[in-house]
Structures are given as C-alpha cells and as structure tokens.
C-alpha cells in the first residue's frame, strides 16, 4: 500500500498506527533474518509512539504530516537513546545523547521511528557489504546486493518492513540502492536538509534524503525533512515549497535533456533499453527530449574519489578512542592508543579511504590531487549550468548494471567505485536527483531511471518523476 493510502486508512479509522507498526514488526521478525536490513529494531519505542499518535487522532487533536507512519532511519543518523553505529566496530558502543535535526522533524510530524538500518561502514561503499555487522540482501533476489551505502533503508522499503525510510547520499548512496531494490530514492539539493546529527563522511557532498514506494511518499517525507536549521552552517535559509499539492499535475511541455556522454560503453543492454523506452513513453506523454552535453562526465569518478576520501580522512580523525567509541586495550602511549584503536575499530574500506585522503592532502601532493579535483569539480558544475539553460531536467540511467551478486566486486575497489558513475555528478554539483523504478531486466531485477534538476528545484524534479511513474503504471 502507498503512503497516502496508509494515511487515509488511519484517518478513516480502517486501521491504526499500532496495527501498522505491528504488521511491520511481524514482517521484520519473519524475513529480516535473511534480508538483514536492520541493525536495531526499537519495537517498544515504536509501539509506544504509535499508541500515542492513535490517541491523538482518536481525540481529534491535530496530527503531523506523517502521523502514525513507521519510518526506518539509516544508522549513521543520531537517535537519542538508540544505538547509532554507522555499521562500524568503532561506534558499536555509541548511544547518542541527542537526536539529529531530521529525527526531531520526524517526531514533530508524528512519524514513528521503527529502527536503524544497515549501511556500508560510515556510508563508504556501494553494496552494504562493508557493514561490520554483515551484508544486507536484496529482497528482489537474496543472492544479490541491495546496493549501498543506504542498502538497509532501500531493502526495508522494498521488503515492506517500513513504508518510508531515510538514507544519506554522498555519491549515490540513496539512488543506487533505490534502483537496485526497485523503490523511489531522492537526494535533495545540497543545503536543503540539515545534516545536524548525521555522522559526517564527506561534508561538501553528504545529503540526507527520502526513500519510499512511490513518488508521493518521497515528496511527503521530503516535506518533513527539508528546511533551515542554524545548527548546520551549510543549511540554506530558503522557503520550502509544498511538495505534495499538485504533485500529480504534469509539467506542460517538459524539456528533458539527455547527454550522449551517459550512453557509453559499460552501460548494460537491458538498462539502455529501459532508458530509451522510458524516454519514448515520456515523449508520448508530451515531453520533448533534447540533446545536451556534459563533456566532463568521464572525470566525475576520479574527481569524487579524490574529494570524498580527502574530506573523510579529516572527518574521521575524531575517532581516537578518547571521547566516545572503541578504545583498544593494548597500547604503549597516547599516540599508540589512537593508532591501535583506529586499526581495531575501522574496516578495510574505511582505512583505504582515510589513507587515500591523507595522501591526497599531504604536503607536495595536495596541489596535484585535491586542489586539481576541486577545479575539475567546478568544470563539472559549469557543464550542468550550461545544460540547464535549455532543459528542465536531465535524464540518465542510475547504474550501469542491475544488482550485482554479493561478493562479486569486493576484491576490486575500483570496479566498485565505477558503479557510481551516473550518480556522483549530482553530489559534486550539489543538485537534486531522484531514482524512479522503470521496469526490470529479464531476470526480474529492478532498473532505475534518474532525473536531475537545477538546485532547489525539487518540486519540478518530483513532478517530472511522477510523470515517469504514471507511464510505468500505464505500461504495466
């Protein structure tokens, strides 16, 4: 059932939040041993919250936008009194003393936080295999990865464990798992959603966003997440439009840009095919498709894998075994306490990125690597500025292939990084982008369709996404 149907059912008294939460908990109990979407399930807290929303409704008191809806939250977002591990041994014992801004927003909207979802350690990865607590499996085929890093959040929605979930997206970490699992996932504009309480990975790229079964659900959740917060100094003080009202009204004369740079070798045939037929469907619905050029596309992955690790190496310096998190039991002196605690607490991918970032920022190399990447980043953003002069949104695939098998890419970090080839540029340029389900391949594995819009044009993006969604419904 969709989010809007669930809300209607609760409003009409056909069901209650308590019942919804119980249904979710039952499914989790039955299936999450296999899927492993959750790292922590807050059954008691969720049931208490659900009962209090039900009482509010029964008494005719005003309720929030997401009143009674269960929401799963990625485990790199702080929840007061509930463990927040980032899927890392380093933070295994950590229980935050405060709620992230978006968790406060969820509670204020009467949503019910049902649990914390699995991820690649510190959100570094594209498969959720880098979790220190075991991989998540794709509900569409449990031999396959759900993608990552928000693999737990995407799998939770796809498996019906929660109608809504929260992810974070630094290089595609919401959109790629949404595509692999067959759900809607959106990365808002950089600055649209406060990151206060999001454990930092790469601060100039990280953004929190919604996952849902449909575009309407994602729009409702974004409505609650978005908005200025002075505790995140990169949060933008700008009015948040209504993302829900008029969402289904088609954009007349929608101009969709496609870039030949996206349709290059490495793109698998089923995805190319679904991409082109989705464009045909949109043309039939009145959109025009225009060629645009994004000439620096082939430099995105290299740019990202210099900037993101550089920022990570600085952000993760805080894990020193002193203030919180894991401390080694065997050390010689203070420096050794730091180095040994970090060696024990952090997994291989996190170490690899800290090392790469430290190298890229070190004396003598910073100009060659980090500074150069920042310059190319501007060229990539300029490409988008130029392209958006002529089109409303840009369409592209989300991933080069459908979900890969668990274990298939773990030995080859670079091949894993190349999975992010279509998603990274939105983070580098700070733009909002969304992945919408657009059919499956022959094996039944979900395929995503990506739209990107200019900064702060989330409503346009969601409306265009709703057009894609309606065409999918017509087709099936």
């Amino acid at each position, binding site marked *: 059932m969709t989010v809007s149907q669930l809300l209607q059912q609760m409003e009409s008294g056909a069901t209650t939040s308590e019942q919804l939460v119980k249904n979710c908990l039952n499914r989790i109990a039955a299936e999450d041993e296999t899927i492993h979407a959750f790292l922590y399930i807050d059954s008691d807290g969720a049931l208490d919250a659900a009962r209090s929303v039900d009482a509010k409704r029964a008494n005719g008191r005003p309720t929030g936008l997401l009143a009674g809806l269960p929401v799963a939250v990625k485990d790199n977002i702080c929840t007061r009194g509930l463990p927040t591990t980032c899927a890392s041994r380093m933070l295994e014992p950590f229980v935050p*003393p405060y709620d992230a801004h978006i968790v406060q927003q969820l509670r204020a909207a009467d949503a019910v936080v049902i649990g914390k979802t699995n991820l690649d350690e510190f959100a570094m990865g594209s498969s959720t295999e880098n979790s220190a607590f075991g991989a998540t499996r794709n509900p569409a085929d449990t031999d396959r990865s759900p993608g990552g890093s928000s693999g737990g959040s995407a799998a939770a929605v796809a498996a019906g464990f929660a109608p809504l979930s929260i992810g974070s997206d630094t290089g595609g970490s919401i959109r790629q798992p949404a595509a692999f699992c067959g759900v809607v996932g959106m990365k808002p504009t950089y600055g649209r959603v406060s990151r206060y309480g999001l454990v930092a990975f790469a601060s100039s790229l990280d953004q929190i966003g919604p996952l849902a079964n449909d575009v309407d659900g994602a729009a409702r959740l974004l409505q609650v997440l978005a908005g200025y917060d002075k505790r995140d100094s990169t949060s933008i003080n700008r009015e948040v439009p209504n993302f829900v009202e008029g969402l289904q009204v088609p954009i007349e004369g929608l101009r969709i840009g496609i870039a030949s740079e996206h349709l290059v070798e490495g793109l698998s045939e089923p995805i190319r095919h679904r991409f082109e037929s989705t464009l045909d469907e949109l043309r039939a619905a009145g959109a025009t498709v225009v060629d645009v050029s994004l000439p620096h596309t082939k430099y995105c992955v290299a740019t990202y894998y210099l900037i993101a690790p550089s920022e990570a190496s600085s952000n993760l310096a805080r894990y020193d075994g002193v203030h919180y998190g*894991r401390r080694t039991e065997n050390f010689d002196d203070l420096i050794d306490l730091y180095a040994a605690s970090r*060696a024990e607490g952090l997994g291989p991918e996190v170490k690899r990125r800290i090392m790469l970032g430290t190298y890229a920022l070190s004396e003598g190399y910073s100009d060659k690597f980090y500074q150069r990447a920042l310059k190319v980043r*501007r060229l990539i953003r300029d490409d988008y500025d130029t392209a958006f002069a002529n089109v409303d949104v840009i369409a592209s695939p989300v991933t080069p292939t459908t979900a890969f098998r668990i274990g298939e890419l773990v030995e080859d970090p670079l091949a894993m990084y190349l999975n992010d080839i279509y998603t990274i540029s939105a983070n580098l340029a700070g733009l909002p982008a969304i992945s919408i389900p657009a059919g499956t391949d022959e094996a039944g594995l979900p395929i995503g369709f990506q739209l990107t819009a200019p900064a702060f044009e989330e409503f346009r993006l969601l409306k265009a996404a709703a057009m894609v969604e309606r065409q999918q419904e017509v087709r099936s």
Partner: protein
Amino acid sequence: MSEKITIDEVRQVAKLSRLKLSEDELQQLSKQMGSILEYVAILDELNTDDVEPMAQAVEVRNAFRADELAESLPREDALANAPASDGRYFLVPDILKKG
C-alpha cells in the same frame, strides 16, 4: 603496473593517518592505492590553470549567528560514551613520563 606508491610511502601515510597497520595491510594498500592513483591520473588530461577551485556546491560564505547562551549537554551525558572517565573528566594514559 607502474609503481605509483611505494610501501615506505604507504607506511608514512599510515603514520600520518594514525592507523596501526600490519605488513599485509600495507602491501595490499600499496597495490590498491596504486591502481586508484593510476585511475585518477585521468584528471591530468585537463588544463585547469584558470579554473577557480570549488570547495562547496552551494557557495555560502560566513554563516554568522548571534552569540547567545543556550543549554549545553549535561556533563553526565557528555561522559556517558567515554571509554574511560572518572565521572568528571575523560581519562587518557600519561602523556609525560613519570620521575
């Protein structure tokens, strides 16, 4: 494959990163970092002499706020996650040698 980064360089980076790595890990990292560095060299194709570096996507400058007194985290909560504490402070090993 060309030697992009030597074991000694990797060892030095590990020291700067405060990571105590085994010889095996250093070996593996030298190989993996080598291939990643080889890949990112693609950026050398571009002439970026006249391009201004872009550190943030939405360029905000100096987000000021009023310097107001507000409630702070209670000491007890701040220390609750400490690996070692005496109830008042975070405890660390001796930094200066005794005697």
